[in-house]
């Protein structure tokens, strides 16, 4: 057998296709090594290198959360309140949980609001946010938290750009238990969300081997898990693939921008069906809060003003009016804070990277102060 194997290898050596595959393998190894050696923090790429996302604490309790895991911890830590209107739920995107060029003593807006509200009988703020959270996700988060915490009021931050996002990200599906689903089923946007999740689940998902069911699912799952574990143990690069893939995606992103001359100020068009679904979610959120007797404060988020905004300005102006009218119709307070944070409190920028969304520590203080003016009394 050894002789035959030797003969086979010898013949392989003389084969052009074998040489091509060998060269290909070497090139692939070089590419993997190159990507592995690059020190790119893919996790924070979306936020930008200057940004930090702390979790705020008060008397040992974490009262801001920006991931499903942190949200669950927050619920655990705060669910023991005896008061019926203990909390202000502040919903937002990454602006709420990110500080640009964080310095000692800097805190997120919910922290300053908590300080401002600090009194024995006051409701306490809790900040729940997700990067690029859309309004459908706000609705799901609100319904989930409303069933678990005594919420007195909701502060809803609105970002025009996030209306381009759609659906519920996979990590949030964990929050959808029967009670939340039943609740969502009562709302127009909620039904759309549930329908979309159902269709996605039917179409595939991890290891959905056969639509008709079967033992393969379990067998292959177990086999794959065992092989994955072993590969990861003996060959650590295998486990690092998601990181390498993220860096590769970042490269693709830059290539796309270069090819199509896309700049940070390039106008991002509104995507009509997504816009509609998100606005329906906002209507449902406000409607539910009104029916359930909760106070609501809606505000347009501060945004950088020293550069042209990457928005369709006509639609942006219209949208702000629509939001104001919606808030009025549902008995909610409305604030337009887009110019609240002065230019010096935003991040630095260079040609290919401008952060329109995340401001420095003092910006958070300013934001909290404005919110406090509305709800502090």
């Amino acid at each position, binding site marked *: *057998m050894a002789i035959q194997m030797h003969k*086979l290898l010898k*013949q*392989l050596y*003389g*084969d*052009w*296709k*074998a*040489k*091509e*595959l*060998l*060269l*290909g*393998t*070497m*090139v*692939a190894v*070089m*590419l*993997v090594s190159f990507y592995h050696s690059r020190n790119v923090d893919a996790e924070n790429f979306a936020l930008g290198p200057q940004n930090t996302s702390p979790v705020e604490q008060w008397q040992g309790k974490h009262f801001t959360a920006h991931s499903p895991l942190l949200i669950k911890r927050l619920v655990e830590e705060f669910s023991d309140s005896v008061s019926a209107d203990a909390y202000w739920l502040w919903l937002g995107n990454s602006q709420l949980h990110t500080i640009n060029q964080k310095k000692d003593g800097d805190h997120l807006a919910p922290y300053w609001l908590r300080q401002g509200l600090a009194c024995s009988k006051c409701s306490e703020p809790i900040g729940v946010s997700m990067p690029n959270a859309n309004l459908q996700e706000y609705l799901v988060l609100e319904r989930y938290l409303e069933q678990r915490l005594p919420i007195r009021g909701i502060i809803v931050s609105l970002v025009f750009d996030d209306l*381009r996002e*759609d*659906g519920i990200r996979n990590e949030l599906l964990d929050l959808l238990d029967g009670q939340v689903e039943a609740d969502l089923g009562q709302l127009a946007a909620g039904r759309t969300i549930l329908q*979309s999740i159902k*269709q*996605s689940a039917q*179409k*595939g*998902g*991890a*290891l*959905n*081997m*056969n*639509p*008709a*069911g*079967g*033992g*393969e699912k379990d*067998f*292959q799952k177990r*086999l*794959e898990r065992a*092989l*994955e574990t072993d*590969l990861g143990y003996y060959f650590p690069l295998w486990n690092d*693939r998601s990181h*390498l*893939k993220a860096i590769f995606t970042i490269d693709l992103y830059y290539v*796309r921008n270069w090819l*199509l001359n896309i700049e940070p100020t390039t106008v991002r*068009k509104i*995507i*009509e*069906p*997504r816009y*509609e679904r998100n606005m329906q979610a906002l209507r449902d959120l406000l409607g539910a809060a009104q029916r359930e007797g909760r106070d609501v404060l809606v505000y347009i988020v501060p945004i950088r003003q020293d550069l042209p905004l990457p928005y369709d300005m006509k639609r942006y102006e219209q949208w702000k009016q629509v939001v104001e009218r919606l808030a009025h119709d549902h008995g909610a307070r409305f604030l337009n804070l887009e110019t609240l944070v002065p230019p010096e409190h935003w991040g630095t920028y260079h040609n290919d990277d401008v952060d329109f969304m995340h401001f420095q520590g003092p910006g958070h203080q300013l934001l909290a102060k404005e919110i406090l003016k509305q709800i502090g009394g």
Partner: protein
Amino acid sequence: MLFNSLGYLFFLVLSVVSAWAAPAFLRKWIVLAASLFFYGSWKVEFLLLIVFSAFVDYFFALRIYKSADHVRRKLLLLCSLSINIGLLIYFKYTFFLVENINSLFDLLGSSYTYITIGHIILPLGISFYTFLSISYTIDVYRNLFVPIRNFPLYLTYVLFWPHMIAGPILRACELIPQLSSNSFRPSPEDVTRGAHKILLGLFLKVVLADELAPLVDDAFNTEASTLSGLDVWTMAYAFGFQIYFDFAGYSLIAIGSAQLVNIRFPENFNWPYLADSPREFWKRWHITLSSWIRDYLYLPLMGSRYEDRSSGGLDIERSPSAHHVVVALFVTWVIMGLWHGANWTFAVWGVWHAAAILLYRVISRTDLLKEMPQLRSVVGWGVTIPIVMLGWIPFRAGSLDKAFQLLGKVIDVTQYGRLSFRENFYLFVFSIFLGMLLLRWMISLRERIIQHSSLGWLVNGLAYGAIFFLTFLYFKVSNQFIYFQF
């Protein structure tokens, strides 16, 4: 077991090495055992069903061969076909039939007790192995093939793991002789060509098809009324590419896996989206299925002489004006559509293609561009590909209502003013389209310029490097192959 999984790669290496290293008398048994394990790892109970179905065909084929009486032969064939098609109908179409009967009575407004049925699990690959079995019995009936007297060998033919779940659909004359006289020891050429095909297949599946899948799913889950004409075109192209990469990827892995045990499969795809006519498309897309349909359905329906090869595709053009040919064409395509799935949307897809082929036949009789073959080819391609791509809309839509709503958007010129998805979706689909044309052009250029040159292997080597790298990055068990559900 999924081809795009570590489990399969592990299984493949183990099976190939075992067959290679084992003494000659054991190799066939190892291949059979590997095939049984491959299928049994999904649902062991269904192995009994396949063994039963295989035994029925094995038995009937021998009886047909032995019998000299024409009527008896025909009866035996009918028995065999009834069992095969009966099983297929039971597992795949019961729910569909019951649903339609209920709808019909609903429509008639009669006081009718609805038929209800329980949950029927569709055995993996039933549509494929049913066709394989049918072709065996019919070939024996047609005296094209002498039935074998070796049930394990016949079982290996039916269950051979590379083609078991989703083809390519092979004829007995193509596979059985290879299985019966095979050393199962690949030559170095087989190893490298097989590995190359598997790598390419994995690339098509995990990098292209699986990256397109969530975008396509999201798009087709979107409320049809909110979409524009341009959205629907993009969805059609996106799904067209997804299903192509998915199935061509699967076929390449199947062909490559078989080659690793020294078995040759025919090609199943040949740049279908470069076809310049509907006829040409069906010579290039799922070639083994269209060849099967040609020989066991379409030609017999027309009363024409069948062929005996799983290559060539549905390349037929005979007396296009004859009434019975048109009927045969549409009947064939409705069956072809329904074979893909128990839903009227698939039948509509079939009718769409039948209409396109018929139209092509009529137009090609008055060939205005006969003197300008290159222009004719470009125009033909420019018309064929949009027709084929739009045909994927009913195939993927899920319901007739949605399919017609989407197709309505394409026709309505007022529905083109906006885009409903993120820009990257359009960009991705357009890049694939452009990439496909560019790649074909580069291949033809390479063939002309650097033929026999050592530069060729350098270019190929670099291309393999990129393919290897991306496959490594994107490799994950996520979605099943689309054709598994058929």
